[in-house]
């Protein structure tokens, strides 16, 4: 099975506190630690596991500047067969539709039975997979937390409310957005990354992909983030400022007073 996985480089929120910049309209980007988006990492692992069961190839792509190579190399170290960087100055400032347009242009140049994305990235939009599927006119399922291949079709489980799972059959080719927790992504150490250090990662730009001016990038974006801000708080916790011991005592008194020990 030919599998394509769309991954994205994002600020790692487990390594960074996201703060506003001094100017107040953007986040502080100096010294941010980036890593592959968590859900995308699960998507790559799922692709590798499917390949392990039935054979095939796994191609990881990202739309980014040259910094995107870092996460692609990580995915190669995990075991992806190839990685491709989709990069062009004209892609900068793309909205979700612009990113999906670029990815569609890449899909059109090859043949993929299964396309995976992470369910959402740092902006929490959960949009690119569904848009890409609609542009390709492929079926789509979101929030996927298990995949089995049966008779040239897939049986996928979607995460719905209350921990319940919705089971669907879906025809190939299709696009699935992968929920975190679907598997246990393999560990990639420095050694693994060194082993793929010399692998060439091709870069495809707008002309290679046939993405016309005005269909992606800032000029095409109809949904634009204007600024970042921290809202004035309507409510905020009373922060206990005592010693650790005093704070512990105070909490126990509160737990009892509020009925937690009943």
């Amino acid at each position: 099975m030919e599998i394509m996985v769309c991954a994205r480089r994002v600020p790692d929120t487990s390594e960074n506190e996201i703060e506003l910049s001094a100017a107040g309209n953007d986040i502080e980007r100096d010294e941010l630690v980036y890593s592959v988006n968590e859900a995308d990492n699960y998507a790559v692992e799922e692709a590798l596991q499917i390949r392990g069961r039935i054979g095939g190839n796994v191609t990881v792509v990202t739309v980014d500047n040259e910094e995107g190579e870092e996460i692609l190399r990580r995915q190669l170290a995990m075991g992806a067969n190839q990685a491709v960087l989709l990069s062009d100055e004209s892609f900068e400032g793309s909205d979700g539709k612009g990113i999906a347009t670029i990815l569609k242009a890449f899909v059109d140049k090859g043949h993929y039975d299964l396309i995976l994305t992470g369910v959402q990235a740092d902006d929490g939009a959960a949009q690119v997979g569904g848009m890409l599927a609609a542009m390709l006119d492929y079926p789509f399922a979101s929030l996927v937390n298990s995949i089995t291949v049966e008779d040239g079709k897939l049986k996928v489980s979607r995460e719905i409310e209350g921990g319940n799972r919705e089971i669907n059959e879906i025809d190939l080719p299709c696009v699935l957005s992968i929920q975190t927790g679907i598997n246990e992504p393999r560990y990639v150490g420095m050694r693994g990354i060194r082993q793929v250090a010399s692998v060439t990662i091709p870069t495809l730009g707008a002309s290679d992909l046939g993405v016309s001016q005005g269909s992606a990038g800032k000029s095409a974006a109809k949904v634009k983030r204007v600024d970042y801000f921290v809202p004035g708080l309507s409510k905020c916790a009373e922060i206990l400022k005592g010693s650790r011991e005093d704070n512990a005592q105070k909490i126990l008194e509160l737990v009892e007073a509020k009925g937690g020990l009943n």
Partner: protein
Amino acid sequence: MARIFAYILHRGGVTDDSAAELIAAAKAIDPTSSPTAILAGWGPDFDLACNSLTASFNDVWKVANQALAYPNAELVRQALVRILPPESIVLALHDHFGIDLAPGLSIKLSAQFVSDVLAIEGADGSSLKLIRQEFGGQVSAHVMCDISAGAVINIRPGAFKPQPRLVTSGKVIDKSAEVGALTARRRYLETVVAEAGDVDITKHSLLVSIGRGIQEKDNITLAEELAEVLGAAVSCSRPVVDAKWMEKSRQVGSSGKTVKPKVYLACGISGAFQHLAGIKGSPFLIAINKNPKAPIFQVADVGIVDDLLEFLPELTNKAREFRGVAAK
């Protein structure tokens, strides 16, 4: 201003409470608007659901089709694309169905998509200003959307204060014939109900709930010891289940359990809205987190900024004294 539609979820003849939130969102886009409800479904229950909405919407568009007996997003999208007028603004809930439906719908309508919207500041001509959150709620963002070609807007559950019922005498308009036959390449098979698990976290008055801040599986014993002394249960947020450190049955949130304790002790939990959605009944919420900017402090009653792995053992020691249990 283009016509505004609200896609309404329903089950067993009862419409989802979010219908009133979608009306509020429509009013935030255009205070003079009278949004049109759209429902898709099949059977006698479905007619009940449609009829019940005539008290709060002037127009209720009904799409009845046997294939829509279960809300399959691919089929619902096909139906909507056939009946929605150009440049429509479509509101849907940002839940597991809205996430499935909306991004693709926006493409098929040649419209824009704005996801998981918390607030709408209003429209200036064809430019709509909205508020979203990024980075798990650590910062908010203003977003401008050009709605001249229409838009699909997903509304965060609970973000808009429900509008009181308009008490109109609306009418149901049957659009089923315009939709015609539907065919899906994704077919619903069944729903698998979550397993019960060894501990029922929905029955406890005190939950010691752990998140990513617990750092390692072995550290969970710190929470378990505290819970044992206080007669509480240990619950958790999504990252703990994703890492396979606890069973899914212990997860609090929109994709886990809904709990109603009297006191909720959030330990190393950042406070993503999907997690908070699982905490009902307004418990007294105590948050322990080393990041003073963690969103959990915006909803907690009392907070402690401290290292969880050092604070929990101290709290357990104090709890033993408090409960008169001799230290081991």
